[in-house]
């Protein structure tokens, strides 16, 4: 093992700033040295007997799968195809602007992309520009890691009124997803209702209520920042079907709400009956979460000068979003009142027959993302909205794998996806070892795909070219005191990439 000297320096025990030194060291042996010229090096990659694998999707699942494959096999070549010109998926487009530490994984993904046996192709839409079948012809194995681009619908009247947005689109809007840049959410009313109580719901609540001097130092897009500055939303209710003990968010996010400057909690005490008594039976994570929730509910949090409020409402399911009298926009939401059957994580919400109306002008549907089928040739379970698989091996299709949300559903944090991606990579590696991937068959890899792309007039973007886009974003952000100012337009991204 190489002996790397740890720099001896005073280590200040400041929890948040305890940083790892030089994560770059991790991939010392695999570091790309010398030419990284995209076209010159990669066009000649054809296989003798080394495995050629491609991954569809350049988000955390794609990168973690690639990382594990490259680390475990000395000769494997991995190409990553991504629909947008830029990599990183939900790390860039989902993680909230005020959670920059969570985005540190981008550093390890960058090293993976720079590995000499890894090649990134942005601006390539698999399913439209190139088919999965064509990928299977060019590679020994194909891994589908394209995530969940749609959202679960409420399925209630009024869902398409002005003022109603999916959390996916709202988050995409403030995070600069190009197809959400024209969302123009209506922030003119006093009250917002968020349906769903997971971490995404809390991210949305926090973005709606955070003081501007916090937001303006983040990578939230400039147009969104201006819209939030002009927002009239002062009260955010986060509504769940079930009770306090079934709340899906985690304690870090709840703590951020409790500590959010300028705000105070507004809950209904009656909804917490019996909860304190249930505490002692709970496993530690749920217990700590519930204790913090109770503390907030008792009104012992928040400042007296708070002008903004947030609160949970439990045992409520949406039945109708009600329009204004001129029927142009949202004016309120009708909720069915539930009771719980059973207890704990498996408790079910059962309607009581009662309803309750809330006034609001903004409704955010945060009940979950949803994957879509990519291609008629790839099996897809429309009920669970995932690709049927066993430990990442796609059912009944040899040489096809999946990882991340499209494999197991759109839940969990980045670490969950990391472990899941490692599982898929391990299955793939086992199959290589067992001789199941027919490595003796000569495959053309990216050479075949690039030929098809050129024929079809598709201009792919390399990782080096992404770094030009990255540099431009960081430069623009620097002028405004932000870590980056995200480009919002695909054409502009490509233009900068190709300069």
């Amino acid at each position, binding site marked *: *093992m*190489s002996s*790397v000297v*740890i720099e*001896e*320096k*005073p*280590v*200040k*025990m400041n*929890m*948040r*700033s*305890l*940083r*790892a*030194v*030089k*994560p770059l*060291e*991790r991939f*010392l042996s695999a570091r790309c040295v010398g030419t990284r010229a995209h076209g010159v090096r990669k066009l000649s990659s054809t296989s003798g007997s080394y495995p050629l694998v491609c991954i569809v999707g350049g988000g955390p699942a794609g990168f*973690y799968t690639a990382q*594990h494959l490259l*680390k475990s096999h000395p000769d494997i070549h991995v190409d990553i195809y991504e629909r947008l010109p830029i990599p990183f998926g939900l790390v860039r487009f989902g993680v909230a602007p005020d*959670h920059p*530490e*969570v985005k*540190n*994984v981008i*550093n*390890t993904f960058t090293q993976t992309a720079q590995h000499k046996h890894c090649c990134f192709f942005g601006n390539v839409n698999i399913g439209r520009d190139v088919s999965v079948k064509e990928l299977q012809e060019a590679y020994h194995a194909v891994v589908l890691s394209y995530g969940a681009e749609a959202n679960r619908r409420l399925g209630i009247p009024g869902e398409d009124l002005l003022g109603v947005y999916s959390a996916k689109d709202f988050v995409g809007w403030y995070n600069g997803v190009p197809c959400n840049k024209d969302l123009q959410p209506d922030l003119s009313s006093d009250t917002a209702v968020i349906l769903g109580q997971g971490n995404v719901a809390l991210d949305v609540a926090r973005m709606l209520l955070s003081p501007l001097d916090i937001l303006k130092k983040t990578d939230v897009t400039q147009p969104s920042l201006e819209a939030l500055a002009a927002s009239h939303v002062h009260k955010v209710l986060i509504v769940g079907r079930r009770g306090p003990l079934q709340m899906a968010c*985690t*304690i*870090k996010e709840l*703590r951020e709400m409790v500590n959010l400057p300028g705000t105070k909690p507004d809950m209904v005490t009656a909804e917490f009956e019996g909860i304190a008594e249930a505490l002692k039976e709970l496993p*530690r*994570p749920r217990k*700590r979460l519930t204790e913090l929730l109770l503390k907030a509910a008792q009104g012992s949090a928040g400042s007296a000068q708070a002008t903004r409020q947030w609160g949970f409402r439990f045992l409520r399911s949406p039945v109708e979003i009600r329009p204004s009298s001129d029927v142009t926009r949202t004016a309120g939401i009708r909720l069915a009142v539930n009771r719980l059957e059973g207890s704990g994580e498996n408790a079910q919400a059962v309607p009581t027959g009662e309803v309750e109306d809330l006034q609001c002008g903004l409704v955010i549907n945060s009940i979950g993302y949803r994957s879509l089928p990519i291609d008629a040739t790839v099996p897809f379970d429309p009920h669970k909205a995932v690709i*049927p*698989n*066993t*430990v990442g091996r796609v*059912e009944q299709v040899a040489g096809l794998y999946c990882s991340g949300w499209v494999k197991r559903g759109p839940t969990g*944090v*980045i*670490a969950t996806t*990391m*472990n899941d991606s*490692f*599982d898929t990579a391990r299955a793939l590696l086992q199959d290589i070892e067992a001789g199941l991937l027919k490595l003796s068959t000569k495959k053309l890899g990216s050479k075949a795909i690039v030929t098809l792309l050129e024929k079809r007039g598709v201009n792919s973007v390399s990782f080096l070219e992404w770094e030009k886009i990255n540099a431009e974003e960081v430069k623009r952000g620097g002028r405004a005191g932000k870590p980056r100012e995200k480009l919002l337009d695909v054409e502009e991204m490509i233009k900068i990439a190709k300069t």
Partner: protein
Amino acid sequence: KSNQKVIQKHSLISPTSKGDKILLHFINQSGVKITTSVTEGASLLEVVINKNLDISGFGACEGTLACSTCHLIFDENVYKNLEPIADEELDMLDLAYGLTKTSRLGCQVCVQKWMDGMTVRVPRDVKDLRNVKESAENQ
């Protein structure tokens, strides 16, 4: 080996002090034991990263208390002598896979002389039971 707790504030460590070499053993997710020799002061996350130890996916958030991937399991007699755990660490630790009563996040534990010879473990790769169930359902 003595497990006597050395009371030392980290900010007092002088940059030029060459402490005794401290031997640490890491057992990775596949059960492989990795031994390394370090000087005191660095966090266990820094040790894993800087020594390039073979532990998959360690330290995703780079020590900023935004994930649980540097989760380490300690022996009871070491665990009870560690610096007290703060709420922020507990918040992330609560989400860790394979959480135990002697778990901590490696980014929050700094190497001290009294840890010489200790063994820390990463949760073993256990085949997720849900995968077994799902595969049965999908057949």
